[in-house]
């Protein structure tokens, strides 16, 4: 395999930092400093991505409604969400009299810790991967399931019936749709034969999993998008915080930074869902490459891998926003109907079909090894 020139890749910079640290510190301290650096980077990226997502969401929502959206602060209102962040930071955290104080304060941390844990394990680009577990996909599903506990506790400890109903709805919805999300990811794990993100991405060098597994992969992709969308309590599935009936659902009683935690994690969860879908189905940070077309591949590699990653994830996020601003909110029984009577049975059958296809060699890489094979 040819080695392509990658001018904008961060690999060299990272190696230089690594060399510098190892040259000046003992191994133990190197690990510690690296850990702290990575932690700061992840938290900074978390905040930055969430803030820019809030801005993009407001802008896209406005455009879908033939408005202009935020346009006052900075050119086209780009620092609007920064101003919002400052406002939220200096707001008072209101104490609720008859709330269960301990759980009330702990709940936002559950939500945000779960989403930071999942965020930290994402492969952002070539060598931009903090944790590469051999169970990457499973790890992501596991830690993201912790967030729902925070939502349930928030709803209960607020001592408010709207919060409580919102939390119960959210719980029922999350548990249901988590099944579908898990199964559709498992379909792709069957196809790529690994749960490790780096291996899944490497396996999609010449053919994305979406096309490699053709029909079942596309069904899994669709189901993952739907259930991921539902898991993040957004779009037509936002009835845990249906403002017309529940004021704001589980975070009705929260203010200031605590509300900010819920807000940030909601947007970040949207990013995580889009990023996982991009990594697992659309090749992650791997640039588009065609076997044999070396010049074309070289041009594609000039675009850095992190740009590919954010581009693909951004496309899926735009899709998610499009869905959100297109459809009316579902009723709770229709919502559960969709999951238990449609998505889950289809998903189970789909998984079986995928197993048959992989075992009998009907994937594109098996059928046309000259075009798509590794």
């Amino acid at each position, binding site marked *: 395999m040819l080695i392509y020139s990658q001018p904008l890749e961060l690999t060299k910079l990272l190696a230089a930092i690594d060399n510098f640290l190892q040259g000046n510190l003992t191994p133990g301290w190197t690990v510690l400093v690296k850990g702290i650096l990575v932690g700061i980077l992840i938290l900074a990226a978390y905040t930055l991505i969430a803030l820019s997502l809030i801005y993009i969401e407001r802008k896209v929502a406005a*455009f*879908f*409604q*033939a*408005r*202009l959206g935020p*346009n006052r602060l900075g050119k086209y209102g780009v620092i609007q969400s920064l101003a919002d962040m400052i406002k939220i930071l200096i707001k008072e955290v209101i104490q609720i009299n008859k709330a269960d104080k301990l759980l009330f304060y702990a709940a936002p941390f559950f939500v945000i810790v779960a989403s930071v844990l999942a965020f930290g394990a994402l492969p952002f680009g070539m060598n931009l991967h903090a944790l590469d577990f051999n169970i990457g996909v499973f790890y992501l599903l596991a830690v993201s399931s912790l967030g729902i506990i925070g939502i349930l506790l928030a709803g209960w400890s607020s001592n408010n019936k709207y919060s409580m109903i919102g939390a119960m709805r959210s719980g029922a919805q999350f548990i249901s749709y988590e099944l579908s999300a898990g199964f559709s990811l498992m379909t792709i794990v069957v196809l790529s034969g690994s749960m490790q993100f780096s291996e899944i991405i490497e396996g999609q060098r010449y053919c994305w999993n979406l096309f490699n597994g053709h029909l079942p992969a596309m069904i899994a992709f669709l189901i993952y998008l739907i259930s991921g969308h539902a898991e993040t309590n957004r779009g037509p599935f936002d009835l845990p915080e249906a403002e017309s009936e529940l004021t704001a659902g589980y975070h009705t009683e929260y203010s200031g930074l605590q509300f900010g935690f819920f807000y940030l994690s909601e947007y970040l969860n949207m990013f995580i869902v889009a990023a996982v879908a991009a990594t697992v189905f659309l090749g992650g940070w791997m640039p588009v490459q065609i076997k044999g077309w070396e010049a074309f591949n070289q041009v594609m590699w000039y675009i850095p891998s992190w740009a590919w990653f954010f581009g693909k994830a951004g496309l899926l996020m735009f899709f998610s926003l*499009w*869905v959100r*601003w*297109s*459809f009316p909110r579902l009723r709770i029984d229709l919502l559960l109907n969709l999951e238990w009577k*449609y998505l889950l049975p*289809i998903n189970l059958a789909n998984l079986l079909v995928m197993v048959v296809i992989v075992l009998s060699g009907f994937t594109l890489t098996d059928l046309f090894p000259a075009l798509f094979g590794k």
Partner: protein
Amino acid sequence: MKFIQYIGGIFTALRSLAGGMIVTWKELLTPKVTMEYPENRKTLVISDRWRSELIMPHDENNEHACTACGICMINCPNGTIQVTSSSIDTEDGKKKKILDKHLWDYGSCTFCNLCVITCPSDAIIFNNDFEGAVFDKSKLLHRLNHEGSKLRDRKKEASTLDTSAKKENKEA
């Protein structure tokens, strides 16, 4: 049979969802109707019928048409207008009322237009200059007649076609 309905239902749902998304996609690309106000001051068009600020038009000789009759003050439903006048002796020995101050409170005006309709000499009108916000409540009290202004000569006025046409309109 039920199974066929089940599968058919999925495709119907997908088709109708796609239909909805096409509608919103078109909406995304439509030109936006939002006006960005302070930037578009030059091109901003406010309807002539918009009543914003009561003014008393003065001509180039600093003359107005107000005879200080006080009808606008009487007709104002919430006492927004205060007309103060004084009487002077003219050259031919008659007594005549002249306007001292015509005060109008922007803050309590409901823009009902009654003062303008009832004014017998069309001395006051509403303009459409809507940027009336001030930082001090006392600035809302406007004095409509300019400093040193005086009543326009009636005879000159009668000869102008414009006012007579206006009066006809009013009678109609």
